[in-house]
């Protein structure tokens, strides 16, 4: 049987090209996603700043909670979950003495980290200030000059400054002038360091707190044993011991969040790719089965049992898979590296996190692809078993078989599944939940389309026959008749085209749906006439408030917090005259952020069961719990986030306690504001603010698009190769039409019309799928059933699908006609 499978493959290469290409792409995509996933799971972040110190004591960078689940049999299962914090956790300064007292510790070096940027310095990375006593943690050594005294700083080798220069440094305290007392011999990649005197550093950082304590072991001390001893000494305190690569994870707090994102993104894209691959390969296999209908019937007639046919087809698929999968997996490594570099450019993959390239993703992808090929072959072989051997005897052996009951049932089941998913989706109000369900919903609807396609094609062709016959005469008549008789082939063409249109529209319009809704919220809720953007210290905000004509200047700072286990986007806003700049759409209570007052979105209030006047605990980004009181419940959460907190509360618990924007109301003009804000800050009017927001949103959408673009490309390849296969197979039919007096023009017109019918049908169905999915998504996420369809983009999608379809039918058609 294997020999026969091999022979068939060799002589019918063209019939398997479609499946081969689809499997190759699937293997490549799964490998690439696997690399992202692997990086998320096992990627290491080598320490930079702490590289020179084997043991670091710092705060716990994770938030933990325990859930207990009663399994029903009396046994209660306890599970502890940990999630990374989004900001750096601080520890009390008195831990340093405790650590220093541990035997084997030669010295401790305390460190504080706070934002400090030399104005006008080169480099666009982050810039952090530290006390000079923590310089040896890296280690940093002075190349020239001396260690800083009060009013002095030491800059790193990349700063371009010289000893004796005077520099202006921006910190949360404002802009201060410092004399450069020395320059270090080295510098780090992607971050600049500014060293202050220990006293000055303590003043600029949080009082009485440290970001890390470096442990210098006494000579001859075993590091592992010492780490254990320190750990034991710290039991019951917030301090935690970090060694090896864990020091890197401590240093790059955002790397952990990025890891989680990579895992979920890699999983979602890889999974979608595999599902789409099965769908596409089932399609191409089914088409090649149809083309081999008579050969299969002949084999059945002369003694091949249904089982033998199934095994023959299964082996053919495995052979195709075995060729395509390793090649695709190899190509996938390149794709993964490319994807990694794109993600790095877009900031999804942090500089510090290295891409992990191991043999596992390609191996797993190759095996998964092989399995997908086998499953696809088994599914498409189902129809083959029904090929009656008597069909080999009749000349018209390839007449359209009836659509099986099982297929209709499966199709109806898929429709039911799609409807259920739509209902579920319309109830999902958070992005992590709605995102994957959105794509799954679209895929399930495409599955329904592929199953019920023949019925649909027949029905539509029936309706179209008179119309096309009149409009396009012979060519149109033939096209409509063929479409009706060859409903199955038509369906196999509509499915990938429908997939292409439906998936692309869904992928592209999810961000616009969200973006439109958020923009609406912001437009309605922003009362300020100007926005000052950049890192704004409080002193500058005060200066802006003092500009004549300014009635309110609200400092704003965003962060991510948790209430209980739920993660929310939160915004810190300064309380003074707040209602003149921001209107979050209060539905209950009175909007105030004075003292411990906080406002909460109606979504979060529902989720947490909170109402006005309730006290609730917020876990801030750095893991500190803060108790607040609900002053108001508001509706515009898409624009403003789910929690509005007092600005000082947020500023006290973030790494960069500087306002990212200041919203300004009043009659002051831009020039006056610009003068007050000083250099380095942008003053934007309403339209400019919206533009800046759009730019940020489109950068975010680009990440989605790059990831999902692979699936779009895949669907396009599938559509092209299915169409080309379907047309190339019709050489005989086209020859016959020419023989009985159909002109070349008429034949090509027929092909074009058939394609047009397929494209129109696919566009309608694909658009329907996308619209339904996006409407459900929008009503869940934004509360209004308004999908964000952009007509221009939509026209490009449909036009692109039509162009691909046209190329893929008319070119093979011309070739087939020329060959006679």
């Amino acid at each position, binding site marked *: 049987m294997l020999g026969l499978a091999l*022979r068939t493959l060799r002589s019918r290469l063209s019939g398997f090209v479609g499946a081969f290409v689809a499997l190759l792409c699937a293997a490549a995509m799964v490998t690439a996603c696997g690399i992202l996933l692997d990086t998320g799971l096992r990627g290491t972040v080598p320490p930079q700043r702490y590289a020179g110190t084997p043991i670091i004591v710092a705060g716990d960078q994770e938030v933990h909670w325990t859930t207990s689940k009663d399994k029903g049999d009396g046994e209660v299962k306890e599970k502890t979950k940990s999630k990374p914090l989004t900001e750096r956790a601080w520890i009390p300064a008195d831990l340093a003495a405790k650590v220093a007292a541990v035997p084997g510790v030669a010295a401790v070096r305390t460190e504080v980290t706070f934002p400090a940027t030399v104005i006008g310095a080169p480099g666009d990375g982050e810039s952090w200030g530290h006390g000079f006593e923590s310089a040896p943690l890296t280690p940093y050594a002075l190349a020239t000059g001396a260690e800083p005294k009060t009013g002095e700083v030491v800059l790193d080798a990349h700063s371009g400054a010289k000893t004796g220069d005077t520099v202006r440094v921006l910190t949360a305290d404002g802009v201060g002038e410092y004399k450069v007392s020395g320059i270090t011999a080295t510098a780090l990649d992607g971050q600049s360091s500014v060293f202050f005197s220990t006293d000055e550093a303590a003043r600029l950082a949080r009082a009485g707190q440290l970001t890390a304590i470096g442990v210098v072991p006494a000579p001859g001390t075993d590091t592992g044993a010492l780490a254990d001893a320190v750990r034991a000494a710290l039991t019951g305190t917030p301090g935690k011991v970090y060694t090896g690569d864990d020091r890197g994870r401590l240093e790059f707090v955002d790397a952990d969040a990025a890891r989680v994102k990579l895992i979920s993104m890699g999983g979602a894209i890889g999974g979608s790719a595999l599902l789409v691959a099965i769908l596409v390969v089932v399609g191409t296999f089914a088409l090649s089965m149809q083309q081999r209908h008579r050969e299969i019937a002949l*084999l059945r*007639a002369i003694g091949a*049992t*249904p089982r033998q046919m199934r095994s023959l087809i299964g082996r053919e698929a495995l052979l195709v898979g075995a060729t395509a999968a390793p090649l695709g997996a190899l190509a996938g490594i390149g794709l993964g590296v490319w994807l990694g570099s794109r993600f790095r450019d877009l900031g999804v993959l942090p500089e510090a996190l290295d891409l992990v390239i191991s043999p596992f993703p390609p191996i797993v992808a190759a095996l998964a692809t092989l399995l997908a090929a086998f499953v696809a072959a088994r599914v498409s072989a189902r129809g083959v078993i029904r090929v009656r051997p008597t069909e080999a005897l009749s*000349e018209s052996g390839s007449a359209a078989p009836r659509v099986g009951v099982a297929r209709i049932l499966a199709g109806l089941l898929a429709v039911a599944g799609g409807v259920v998913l739509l209902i579920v989706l319309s109830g999902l109000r958070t992005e992590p939940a709605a995102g994957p369900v959105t794509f799954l919903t679209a895929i399930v609807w495409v599955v329904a389309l592929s199953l019920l396609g023949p019925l649909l094609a027949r029905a539509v062709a029936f309706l179209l026959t008179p119309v096309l016959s009149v409009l396009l005469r012979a060519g149109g008549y033939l096209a409509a008749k063929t479409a009706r008789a060859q409903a199955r082939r038509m369906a196999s063409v509509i499915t990938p085209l429908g997939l292409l249109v439906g998936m692309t529209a869904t992928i592209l319009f999810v961000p616009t749906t969200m973006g439109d809704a958020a923009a609406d919220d912001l437009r309605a809720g922003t009362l300020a006439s100007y926005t000052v953007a950049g890192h704004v210290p409080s002193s500058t905000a005060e200066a802006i408030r003092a500009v004549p004509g300014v009635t309110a200047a609200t400092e704003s700072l965003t962060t991510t917090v948790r209430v209980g286990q739920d993660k929310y986007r939160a915004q810190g806003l300064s309380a003074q005259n707040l209602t003149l700049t921001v209107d979050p759409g209060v539905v209950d209570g009175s909007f105030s952020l004075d003292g411990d007052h906080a406002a909460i979105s109606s979504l979060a209030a529902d989720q947490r069961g909170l109402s006005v006047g309730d006290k609730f605990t917020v876990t801030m980004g750095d893991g500190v719990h803060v108790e607040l009181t609900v002053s108001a419940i508001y509706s515009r959460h898409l624009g403003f986030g789910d929690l509005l907190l007092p600005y000082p509360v947020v500023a006290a618990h973030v790494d960069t306690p500087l306002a990212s924007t200041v919203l300004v109301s009043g009659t002051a003009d831009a020039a006056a504001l610009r003068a007050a804000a000083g250099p380095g800050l942008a003053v934007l009017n309403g339209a400019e603010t919206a533009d800046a927001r759009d730019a940020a949103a489109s950068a975010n959408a680009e990440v989605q698009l790059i990831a999902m673009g692979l699936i779009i490309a895949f669907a396009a390849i599938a559509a092209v190769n299915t169409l080309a296969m379907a047309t190339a197979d019709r050489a005989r039919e086209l020859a016959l039409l020419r023989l009985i007096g159909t002109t070349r023009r008429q034949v090509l017109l027929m092909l074009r019309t058939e394609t047009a019918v397929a494209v129109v049908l696919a566009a309608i169905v694909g658009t329907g799928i996308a619209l339904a999915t996006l409407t459900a998504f929008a009503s869940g996420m934004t509360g209004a059933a308004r999908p964000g369809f952009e007509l221009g983009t939509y026209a490009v999608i449909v036009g692109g699908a039509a162009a691909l379809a046209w190329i893929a039918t008319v070119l093979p058609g011309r070739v087939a006609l020329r060959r006679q």
Partner: protein
Amino acid sequence: MSTTVAAPPAVRLESVTKTYGKGANAVRALRSVSVDIPRGSFTAVMGPSGSGKSTFLHCAAGLDHPTSGSVRLGDTELAGMSETALTKLRRTRVGFVFQSFNLVPALTVTENVTLPFRLAGQKADKEWTAEVLRRVGLEQRAGHRPSELSGGQQQRVAVARALVTRPEVVFGDEPTGALDTVTAKEILNLLRATVDAMGQTVVMVTHDPVAASYADTVLFLADGDIVEAMSSPTADKVAERMTHLGAWS
């Protein structure tokens, strides 16, 4: 048709009825057909389009299940056999020659001929295969692909494949229908020779009176029933009888 030979006939149909469809749309393709095909005979089945001759062949050869009645191949009752059992029976005990598309394009002549063995998981009898290819006159072409052969040569390969398992019956469904008269004559002579020289039983459906004249007996079907069995047919006698069949008679 009756026989005095003690051994059972090669094929025996008893009250075979075949109905397609249900209710008002039901078409009775065979109406209670009973016939014996003796061993070592060459039988042609004739009839106008829609007379049920293809259905007759399908039922007799185990390609299709009759709605009612009994079909025996030698001692074996085919009615009630599972699809897989029928398939295995077809592999070794029945040979087929179809009008066209008889061969798997991917395989050479020899591989096509020995395909039934391969499907049965048996080793092909090399000497016998060579002998069969010699008899159909294709010993020089054993390694060629179907696409490299003429239409007549392809039909010879089909005949060789039908003979190679030494089946009890070879069934032909318009085996010369797609050939020119000269080539058709070669194939008919080949079939005749297998009956005469090898004692093979051959049943052939045809609409060509000349083809039918090569047979020992011609069965005439009209509206799903056998209306006559003609012995020692000639092309003229067959053509004459054909014009008075069915609705036109």
